[in-house]
């Protein structure tokens, strides 16, 4: 039976999409457990150790959490905008998942004579696509905050808009240095060019700026002002419960995975091992886990920024540094051409 090549491509893309989504959702479930465990250790507590425990770690805890979440009452605030209140968590998760369409996960290989690329799409504007999808992610938070018809939610949404617009600029500019070195906007090209030396060696400042801005983009401590629990109850997600709350939670963790994967791919060589040792998806997972651990570590140890400090830091420190980084990179590239 001969199939139309377009049909084959579509089926292949569909299978890859399903696999990536299942992997991300599993990773999300277990990240909640890892986060609770790591934070517990940092704070000298025991952490989850009951549900299906093996060696003191509750391996079935995520399933218990999910069942509990599903059976909670799905609360509708009075006067809430029903449509927007409902679609906001969907937008948040949808944009978080879309970013993975261009992520190269593993070197292309031949399996049983069939060539497989381990990415869903290799477009020559992949980095721009990531930034565009990232900028759409704000809508989930903003609409969720506005649709809840609650002062705390609204304040959280306003804060997150200002914060994410401010840090998005530094985030994008931090990546420009890498783009100048690679001469390509395709993530596959960028990874292939780092087969021996990672970009972080040439772009240490860009790497640091990217990581700080990325932590601010995913609203994690010390930049979690949109959901600062001491001032805003829970910010934009105050009114959300049950599955809709779970979706916002999922979006936050998948965004953590996304920014970690972008940092790994752009600066740490993605699936490339150090000095070309055994390239493969295990390196990418290892690097993502490293970034996730650092973010959890920061949550366990750092206090929250004040709002004016947050804005001042973003506009007066990160942005000029990112511009200076591009300037210096350009000069060095021209001199050592």
């Amino acid at each position, binding site marked *: 039976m001969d199939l139309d090549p377009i049909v084959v491509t579509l089926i292949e893309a569909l299978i890859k999409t399903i696999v990536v989504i299942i992997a991300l959702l599993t990773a999300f479930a277990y990240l909640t457990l890892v986060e609770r465990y790591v934070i517990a250790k940092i704070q000298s507590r025991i952490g989850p150790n009951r549900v299906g425990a093996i060696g003191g770690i509750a391996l079935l805890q995520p399933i218990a959490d999910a069942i509990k979440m599903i059976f909670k009452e799905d609360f509708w605030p009075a006067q809430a905008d029903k449509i927007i209140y409902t679609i906001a968590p969907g937008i948040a998760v949808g944009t978080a998942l879309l970013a993975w369409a261009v992520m190269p996960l593993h070197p292309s290989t031949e399996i049983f004579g069939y060539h497989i690329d381990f990415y869903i799409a290799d477009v020559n504007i992949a980095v*721009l696509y990531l930034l565009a999808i990232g900028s759409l992610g704000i809508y989930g938070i903003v609409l969720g905050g506005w649709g809840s018809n609650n002062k705390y939610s609204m304040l959280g949404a306003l804060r997150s808009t200002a914060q994410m617009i401010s840090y998005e600029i530094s985030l994008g500019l931090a990546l420009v240095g890498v783009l100048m070195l690679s001469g390509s*906007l395709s993530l596959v090209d960028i990874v292939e060019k780092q087969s021996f030396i990672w970009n972080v060696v040439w772009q240490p400042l860009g790497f640091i700026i990217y990581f700080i801005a990325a932590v601010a983009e995913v609203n994690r401590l010390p930049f979690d002002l949109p959901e600062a629990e001491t001032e805003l109850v829970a910010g934009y997600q105050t009114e959300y419960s049950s599955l809709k709350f779970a979706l916002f939670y999922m979006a936050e963790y998948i965004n953590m995975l996304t920014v970690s994967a972008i940092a790994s791919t752009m600066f740490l060589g993605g699936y490339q091992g150090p000095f070309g040792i055994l390239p493969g998806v295990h390196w990418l997972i290892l690097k993502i886990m490293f970034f996730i651990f650092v973010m959890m570590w920061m949550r366990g140890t750092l206090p929250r920024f004040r709002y004016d400090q947050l804005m001042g830091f973003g506009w007066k420190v990160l942005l000029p540094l990112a511009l200076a980084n591009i300037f210096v990179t350009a000069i060095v590239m021209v001199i050592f051409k």
Partner: protein
Amino acid sequence: MELIPFYFLAALGVIAALGVVMLRNPVYSALCLAVVFVSLAGLYVLLSAPFLAAAQVMIYAGAILILFVFVIMLLSPGSDPLKEELKWQRPLAVIFGVALVAQLALVIALAVLPPTRGPFTPELIAQIGSTQAVGASLFTDFLLPFEITSLLLLVAIVGVIVLAKKRQ
């Protein structure tokens, strides 16, 4: 083959555009406008301009429209009043709209497109990359407009600060 995505995106864009103009709640209008921007980005991909598609989503949907939503939430103006102060305005607007449509239809029907073609075929753009093609043109032939645009942005920044500053 290209017609199916075109008609889908075009229908989506027109319905959402009508939503922008018709809906009473400004937040709904803004959301509809976001849909218009995304459907236009899809059309740009069909027109082999993926760079513009990404820029469209990033700048229009990700920055400009977020500013709109921010201001709408900040002011929370609510829905438009149903009563019009100027009674003749709505019908007059519709008349002018119809006149505009007729004029545009006439121009499109009578227009003769020039047969001259430049070197940038979709194949060539795909080969050198849409971003590279736009960038090379922007920094050579259009360098002066590009620099003037940066000046315009500076003027806008100063203007916004003057407007936003509290009066003494």
